[in-house]
């Protein structure tokens, strides 16, 4: 490592900066190796595999666009997975944003015990992706689970098994996602603190009501944070896997009602060993996520308000 030592050299502007490519690339070496071997190389390879019938064993036979054609025209489970995933994304992301923002605004009123509430609301985000919580969810929404016991005790209502009923199972997963609004809430809280207090004072001198202040000051000034949270939550929702896997025993059931895209991808790749086809599925997911991200950035200039 002693070869990394460099001599200093005056840069333009008269200050001393050392610029030595050897040191720079020396420190960057682990990342560079990782980038080429674990990111760029595999990304190219996975596109190539998506054009083959590779199964993990034997040769990868070139099939051209066949995998993609089959995805689009001859794979009902793909469309089921799309349907489930989009329903999940379109329900969980807005609900999470609304809860996170509402709680953040409530907590930002100068209440004592802010850090206590913040910690409690954040805890589900920290543990929510674990197998343990998925196990818990299975029990809570089972036919004889906690929710139905409570419903029965409170209202005498005999609830169905929410998990094993295909028309409700997905919503238990949406609820599990919304339950984890805490990390977005923390980002909102940080954003709310950036808003200068005197703007509210000026507005209330002008006679603006609280609701008007929220709509005309808080919301516009918070749009960069809303935008950021929305993008991150959307990408994350498309990638959701563990809870659906554990709750449905890896099947995506009942009757494919919780067949998240990632779960279908997993089944094709690692239970059916259709590496070629799964690679094509993976690229479709990457393109969907890229499309959503690009769309958010493109529409951002119409609604996201940045300081000059």
């Amino acid at each position, binding site marked *: 490592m002693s070869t990394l*030592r460099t001599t200093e050299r005056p840069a333009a502007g008269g200050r001393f900066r*050392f610029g030595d*490519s050897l*040191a*720079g690339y020396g*420190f*960057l070496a*682990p*990342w560079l190796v*990782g*980038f080429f071997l674990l*990111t760029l190389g*595999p*990304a190219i390879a*996975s596109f190539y*595999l998506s054009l083959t019938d590779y199964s*993990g064993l034997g040769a990868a036979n070139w099939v051209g666009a066949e995998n993609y054609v089959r995805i689009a025209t001859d794979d009902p489970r793909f469309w089921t997975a799309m349907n489930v995933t989009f329903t999940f994304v379109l329900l969980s992301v807005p609900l999470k944003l609304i809860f996170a923002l509402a*709680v953040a605004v*409530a*907590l*930002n*009123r*100068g*209440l004592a015990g802010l850090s206590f*509430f913040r*910690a*409690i*609301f954040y*805890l589900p*985000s*920290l543990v929510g992706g*674990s*197998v*343990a*919580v998925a*196990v*818990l969810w299975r*029990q809570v929404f089972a036919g004889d689970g*906690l929710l139905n*016991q*409570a419903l029965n005790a409170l209202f005498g209502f005999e609830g169905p098994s929410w998990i094993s009923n295909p028309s409700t199972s997905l919503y238990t997963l949406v609820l599990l996602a919304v339950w984890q609004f805490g990390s*977005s809430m*923390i*980002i909102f*809280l940080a954003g709310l*603190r950036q808003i200068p*207090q005197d703007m509210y*004072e000026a507005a*209330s001198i002008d*006679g603006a009501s609280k609701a008007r202040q929220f709509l005309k000051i808080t919301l516009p000034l918070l749009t960069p944070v809303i935008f950021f949270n929305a993008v*991150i*939550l959307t990408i994350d929702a498309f*990638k959701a896997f563990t809870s659906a*896997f554990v709750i449905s025993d890896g099947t995506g059931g009942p009757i494919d009602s919780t067949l998240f895209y990632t779960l279908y*991808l997993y089944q094709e*790749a690692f239970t059916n060993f259709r*590496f070629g086809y799964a690679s094509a599925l*993976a690229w479709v997911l*990457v393109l969907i996520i890229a499309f959503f*991200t690009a769309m958010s950035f493109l529409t951002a200039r119409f609604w996201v308000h940045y300081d000059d």
Partner: protein
Amino acid sequence: MTDAALSTTTIAPRTDTGEPSVSPWKRALLYALLLAVSFLMLYPLLWMVASSFKPDSEIFTSTGLVPADLTVDAYRRGWSGLSIGFGWMFFNSLVISLLVVIGNLFSCSMAAYAFTRLRFKGRGFWFTLMLGTLMMPQHAVLIPQYVMFLKLGWVNSILPLVVPKFLAIDAFFIFLMVQFFRGIPRELDEAAIMDGCGPLRIFLKVILPLSTPVLATAAVFSFIWTWDDFFAPLIYLNDIEKYTAQLGLRTFVDSTGTSDWGSLFAMSTLTVLPVFILFILFQRLLIEGIATTGMKR
């Protein structure tokens, strides 16, 4: 702003139309509401812990938090419920998580140092690529990575879970450290250069010692995310002796079905416990880490 908002409630409102920023009644209502919501949110977790100390018959008849009959029987059953004891799986999880922490701290701090402090040709180009990988879903590289590790004979070992972390694959932590390193005054580097320090000594003696907050944040997040990770162990570990606690728990669900919720809850509680302890100890770091980077999990 908390303080600012607090102080506005103690001084009289300055408008005739507006109300004080929060009136006492509204404040009480807000507290009640927040308490109710947080209690409701935590209830399933509390109930899980409570139920792990209940006899099995009580789990399906009691929605309360206090076990009528406190017993650790479920823990005893669960701990030896699989052919390999849960203790061994906790050990596996611990080894993998600690190695990932070391790998991330080592490789990501080096990359962040290169990006923020060293001037070299192509730096901007690589930095842009690094930011690009932040957005890229892992699915794009999943299958070829798996095939590569298969050909290397690494599948069914911890190597695919650990080695990539020594190659700075978690760009998020590079980003986190870049943000922090940028805040360290350059004058310190320049003083060290005057003293004849090279980049390596500056990294070790100036940057790293000043970066304990961000290193701690990265370490805690690395540990928790690896501890909780399910997907990578699921595809890379086959033998039950190599299972992590998460994988063991999932296998346990399969083997007991829904017949023994007590021991399932007991083992679930144990797998969440390390995360919970870290949360209590490093709450501020975690929350500030989330707030400053705007990253969520």
